[in-house]
């Protein structure tokens, strides 16, 4: 069946409006990127030029993929259980919106600001490193392939985290618990990114393509699986449909 762009757009727009007015979500979206920005900057600024050759063995920039791993999961974890707790889910489910449309609208609303924030933090980090780090350290850090990988993997990792967050959100009874579980469940992606960043897992083109393909498939499947598992009856009555 055809996905209604208007219903997806309406959900997307409503979610963004809600984020704007919801200090809890704004705080969540701000705090993690700040952690991921400040900590590496402190390390980079403290590095002497003599340490620069050592940096070329790692891919420290990829450490920041933790932002798209964690932020969207925390936001998406609010998506369903948050509505249920504030009593707005039932009126929405009485409209013609289909499960896949509702989830897609919510996922996009978590994806777009998360990716935008991640890119903004990367840009800020790059600008800070380019302007204030020692030139040898800067040139060792800012490498084309790493930047490209960073740019490409950010939406893919965010998408995966969002479906995990939504999966938790549809099962949880409290949004704070959902958010904590969402962050916890997104940690493996962040850990993989960190292992690659510190060259524990050596990144190759083949590995990058394989990971990208896996994430792409996972993101597509995540949408379909979540739509199939979205049980209106259980969400309304807290009893599984018979």
């Amino acid at each position, binding site marked *: 069946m055809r996905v209604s762009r208007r219903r997806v757009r309406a959900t997307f727009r409503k979610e963004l409006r809600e984020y704007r007015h919801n200090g809890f979500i704004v705080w969540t979206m701000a705090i993690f990127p700040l952690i991921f920005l400040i900590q590496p900057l402190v390390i980079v600024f403290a590095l002497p030029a003599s340490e620069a050759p050592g940096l070329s063995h790692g891919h420290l920039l990829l450490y920041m993929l933790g932002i798209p791993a964690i932020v969207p999961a925390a936001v998406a974890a609010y998506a369903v259980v948050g509505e249920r707790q504030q009593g*707005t889910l039932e009126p929405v489910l009485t409209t013609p919106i289909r499960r896949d449309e509702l989830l897609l609208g919510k996922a996009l609303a978590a994806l777009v600001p998360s990716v935008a924030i991640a890119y903004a933090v990367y840009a800020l980090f790059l600008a800070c490193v380019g302007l204030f780090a020692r030139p040898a350290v800067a040139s060792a850090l800012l490498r084309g392939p790493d930047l490209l990988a960073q740019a490409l993997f950010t939406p893919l990792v965010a998408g995966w985290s969002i479906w995990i967050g939504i999966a938790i959100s549809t099962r949880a009874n409290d949004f704070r618990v959902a958010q904590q579980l969402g962050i916890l469940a997104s940690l493996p992606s962040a850990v993989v990114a960190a292992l690659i960043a510190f060259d524990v897992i050596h990144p190759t083109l083949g590995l990058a393509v394989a990971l990208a393909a896996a994430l792409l498939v996972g993101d597509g499947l995540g949408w379909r699986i979540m739509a199939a598992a979205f049980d209106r009856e259980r969400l309304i009555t807290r009893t599984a449909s018979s």
Partner: protein
Amino acid sequence: MGRGPSLAGDSGAPALSVEHLSKRFGDRVAFDDVSFAVGHGEVFGFLGPNGAGKTTTVRTLGTLIAPTSGTATVAGLPLTPENGVEIRRRISIMPESPGLYLRLSVTENLEYFAGLYEVPDAADRIGRALRAVNLADRAHDACGTLSKGLRQRLALARALLSDPQLLFLDEPTAGLDPVAARDVHQLIATLSRSGVTIFLTTHRLEEAERLCDRVAILNTTLRTIGRPDTLRERLFAKTLTVRTLAALPDPGAVFAGLPAVDGWHQDGLATYVLAVSDQAVAAPAATRALVAAGADVLSVSESHHSLEDVYLELIDQDQEASQG
């Protein structure tokens, strides 16, 4: 109601038809073997005590939850999972709790739902819906700043956005003060006159009596269904209440043998209730007999049983049955 509701619409089918519908949650029966039909343009009251299954019935007919057994046709479509989207496009449900986005403005709430219903010319439709519930001047206020009554009116405006064929109102006046409730009543009456079929669940029996063409009383199973006056007649014998200034010395001699009087009993010091077959015949005859007996007659009146009496009688019967 001024406009006569018809069970069959232009298509020949009722707006809502339910046959032997049941819903169980595990061992718990929400409602069982419920059958009824609602005509086009009818205001249909659905009454029952807490836990009777009213809200679950609305949710089932609104495709939110699946029935365990039985069939239904909602707004011309069989109640099946495949028809869920199309049924929800034709109907509108106002749940008991308004479920508004309190951080968003009145207009932003309605814009979202206009988008979900893919309403054409949304701005115009939102303006009309807000005017219909007298909320146009609060269009840009955050919903969190509205009173409970205004939130209820906004929820009604939201339900009207899609111009539904069939409107489910679940306790629309719950928790409202009398003025706000009256406003909602007026709106329901207006909607009914414009041809919308309304399925109204309520605890307020006077509300059902005033607004509904027919009512059904549910207590897990459907206890009765019909026009309020028909239900009264069906459940209660016709009676006359006679009040005199002083107790009659020999009431049996006065009331015995009167035409259309089947029996009598005393209800208080100087009040007598006559069971009658025809009030128009019995009332003048009783009055003449009382005057002839030298009684000072204060009143001879038709006993009035409200829908509340019908409701309480049926629920009492259920309680007695479950205890006995």
